[in-house]
């Protein structure tokens, strides 16, 4: 293997970010052209803005809990701070990033106590406390009917892996097929089709990639999984690598996941100490602050040390993936379902679900009593999910069923099954199952503005429909919110055409879905847009 991974982003990080002359030094070290190094560094916010030591999450859930006040307090205190996109702590608002560590549940008071010294904002000060764990459900160990079982003790026995190693690739793929496991990252694509496609390539060098670049506003399940059940993930990866004939596994965790990264690295050691994973090489890689790298081909570009701009598909990664080799790339949760499927069989997993196969980690945040991560049968309704989470706060007005990309649904859609098919049928999607609940205190135009700013900030800028469209829609909504609309400013009366263009012509899912927050809200809540 010629390239394990490119060092460019890491080397920029080691130099303290993209400061003057860093491009030159990294270029000298790697042979990558100076300008290309600069292009990479300037793409990633954790590299390009290394002078900002604190970043306040401005995801919708944190904003609903008053993130703006925390940010303003930090600015008033003269701290080196900036707003940032969702930090995957929507259950514990307001989240603040300190260097590369997330501090959940930060209050204005804590910011004031720093006395203008950012280093005084510490993890211990926050109620989330050690290890950044949130509410989970079921909260006690339950061995019977859960594929993941977040509350369960880590299992280092490798039983599923040992079973898999005695079986042929085709046999394992047949089990995955019979389980009807769908990808948990957002698209719900049948997992076995990817496994089969990689396994049947004529190229002998194949890779497995773990997509742990969790960043969809409203989503934090992978964080819980990485910290509570890294055993499931590592074992699943090893089984997948065996099935598709890969010897190298790449872990791509978002840069803000310092704790989850430690957790999964320790898990790999645990298995190694027990003589498992003998011939597998694990390569872990930290993202540098770019939501778009959760898009699988952008992730591959970033792993190759380039700007995280999605590739055109086809070809798909199963044929042309990392360094051009066939690559199986899965979301954390998808992979974590694998060990129990192997142990207990495809039918067992399939029957766990209600309207589709398996249990599902639902993240819930916003106006509910106990925001958190709940493992429930795939296809439950919003009311059932909220019941697990202690009930609503206030009167339900709207909800995002699957992150910012899924748009908004009104309260009267509360009985729809939260699965891939039923939500797609109403023009939404399950996506990452990051459910955000909004009560009737929320102005939908304001909520839409939060989502649109996120997409504008996170657009990679490669294709015009997304690069220009996300900004256009955000400016149009802002103009309405501020009452600053003029004849010459972007205007919501063109929103339908802009949204059509973004959906029709954007290269990747970000641009294709970014307008949904606006168009769905305008459809279901016209009174908020008058």
């Amino acid at each position, binding site marked *: 293997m010629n390239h394990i991974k490119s060092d460019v982003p890491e080397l920029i990080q080691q130099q303290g970010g993209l400061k*003057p*002359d860093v*491009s*030159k030094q990294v*270029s000298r070290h790697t042979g990558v*052209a*100076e*300008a*290309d*190094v*600069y*292009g990479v560094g*300037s*793409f990633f916010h954790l590299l*390009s803005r290394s002078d900002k030591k604190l970043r306040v999450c401005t995801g919708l859930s944190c904003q609903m809990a008053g993130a703006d006040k925390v940010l303003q307090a930090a600015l008033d205190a003269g701290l080196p701070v900036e707003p940032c996109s969702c930090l995957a702590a929507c259950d514990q608002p307001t989240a603040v990033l300190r260097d590369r560590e997330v501090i959940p549940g930060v209050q204005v008071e804590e910011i004031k106590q720093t006395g203008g010294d950012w280093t005084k904002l510490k993890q211990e000060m926050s109620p989330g406390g050690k290890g950044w764990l949130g509410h989970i459900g079921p909260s006690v160990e339950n061995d019977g009917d859960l594929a993941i079982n977040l509350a369960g003790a880590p299992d280092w026995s490798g039983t599923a892996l040992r079973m898999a190693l005695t079986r042929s690739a085709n046999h394992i793929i047949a089990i995955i097929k019979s389980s009807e496991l769908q990808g948990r990252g957002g698209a719900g694509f049948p997992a076995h089709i990817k496994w089969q496609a990689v396994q049947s390539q004529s190229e002998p060098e194949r890779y497995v990639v773990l997509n742990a670049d969790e960043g969809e506003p409203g989503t934090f399940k992978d964080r819980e999984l990485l910290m509570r059940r890294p055993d499931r993930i590592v074992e699943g990866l090893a089984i997948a690598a065996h099935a598709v004939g890969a010897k190298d596994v790449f872990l791509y965790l978002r840069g803000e996941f310092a704790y989850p990264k430690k957790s999964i690295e320790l898990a790999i050691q645990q298995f190694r100490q027990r003589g498992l994973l003998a011939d597998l090489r694990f390569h872990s890689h930290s993202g540098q602050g*770019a939501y778009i790298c959760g898009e699988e081909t952008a992730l591959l570009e970033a792993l190759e040390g380039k*700007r995280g701009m999605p590739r*055109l598909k086809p070809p798909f990664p199963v044929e042309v993936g990392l360094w051009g080799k066939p690559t199986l790339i899965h979301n954390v949760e998808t992979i974590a379902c694998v060990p129990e499927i192997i142990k207990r069989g495809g039918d067992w997993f399939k029957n766990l679900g209600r309207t589709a196969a398996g249990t599902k980690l639902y993240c819930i945040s916003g106006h509910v009593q106990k925001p958190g991560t709940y493992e429930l049968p795939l296809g439950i309704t919003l009311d059932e999910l909220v019941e697990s989470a202690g009930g609503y706060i206030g009167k339900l007005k709207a909800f995002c069923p699957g992150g910012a990309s899924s748009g908004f649904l009104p309260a009267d859609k509360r009985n729809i099954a939260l699965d891939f098919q039923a939500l797609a049928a109403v023009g939404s999607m399950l996506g990452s199952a990051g459910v955000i609940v909004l009560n009737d205190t929320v102005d939908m135009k304001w909520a839409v503005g939060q989502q649109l700013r996120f997409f*504008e*900030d*996170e*657009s*990679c*800028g*490669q*294709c*015009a*429909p997304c*690069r*220009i*469209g*996300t*900004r*256009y829609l955000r*400016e*149009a909504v802002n103009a309405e919110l501020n009452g600053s609309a003029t*004849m*010459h*400013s*972007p*205007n919501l009366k*063109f929103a339908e*055409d*802009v949204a*059509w*263009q973004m959906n*029709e*012509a*954007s*290269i990747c899912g970000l641009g294709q879905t970014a307008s949904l927050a606006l168009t769905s809200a305008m459809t279901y809540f016209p009174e908020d847009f008058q």
Partner: protein
Amino acid sequence: MKLARNQLTLNGKTVSFTDGETILTLANRMGVHIPTLCHDPRLDPVGACRMCLVEVTGFNRLVPACTQKATPGMEVITENARITRHRQTLLALYMTDHPQDRNAVEKGAPNQLLDLAEQYQAPLNWGRMLPIRSARDDDRNPYILFNADLCISCARCVRYCAEVERVSAITLANRGASTTVATADNASLLDTSCEMCGGCIDVCPTGAMTEKMPLTRNHKPERELRKVRTTCNYCGVGCQIDLNVDDIANDGRGMVVKITSPPPGTTVNDGNLCVKGRFAYDFIHHPDRLTQPLVCNENGELQPTTWDDALEKAVNGLQAVAKRYGADALGFVSSSRCTVEENYLMQKLARAVFHTNNVHQCAAT
């Protein structure tokens, strides 16, 4: 209808394609126009500008014609209501982020985005956004100006610099709406690996990359100039160049105000030029330039004369030296700026006419 192995239908017509051919190349060959912005035949297609999307049966989404390979039996549609809506809404979006007044912004090459917006009657009433892309206004290089307001982030310049010149002096920098074209640390091009070939100007579809000299001298935009094709005389390669002539400048005598390269695929240099061919044209109208033959008078001062007289003086002088000191007293030095044919004639003159091998040229060793 049964199609042969290498056939597909293009707007309902059966056409044959060659192996590996893209829809765009095939359509161009068949005289079917598909608009593009980020495409250049010298570069790997990237499908980023989204202008060339067409409909292909079996694909839910519109497909970039520049990247999609032709396959047997494919049904391609390049004109219908959906594609018209796509082109109009895409161009309308581009125009919210781009100056619209042609007279104000089209100082150099024709702006292909404005052309397309006109051609497809894109709505121009969607409002405007303030430019936010960073430029390098303090770049002290004498030739290349980057006007970020006109940039559409198609990356043709960046890809040309990397793929054709293999120089990689520039990059796409930042992201999202702030995406721009930059050098490392925003240094002047003079402090990068840039060779000043100006290819970035040649490939730019909107004039965001443009020549500094015609701009600072207030010359007319390219549209108002007459192109005269000629051969670059800086070396023997024979690159074709287009002199851009303002016929009424220079008191009506005409003036070469800039040089551009012919379109790729049409001449030996495939649209490429070097720093000298593209930018070093000030000698053309320089007062020191020799524009007529000169010979010395009795006082040793150079005086204008006719070609016949000048050549006769040269012949007499050469023959006199040869007669008095022998042919090897003569030496013939020509230049790599001459063409191969001219250099051939020079050595012929030395060897066959004056019978000496004393002939040299700076590119001969």
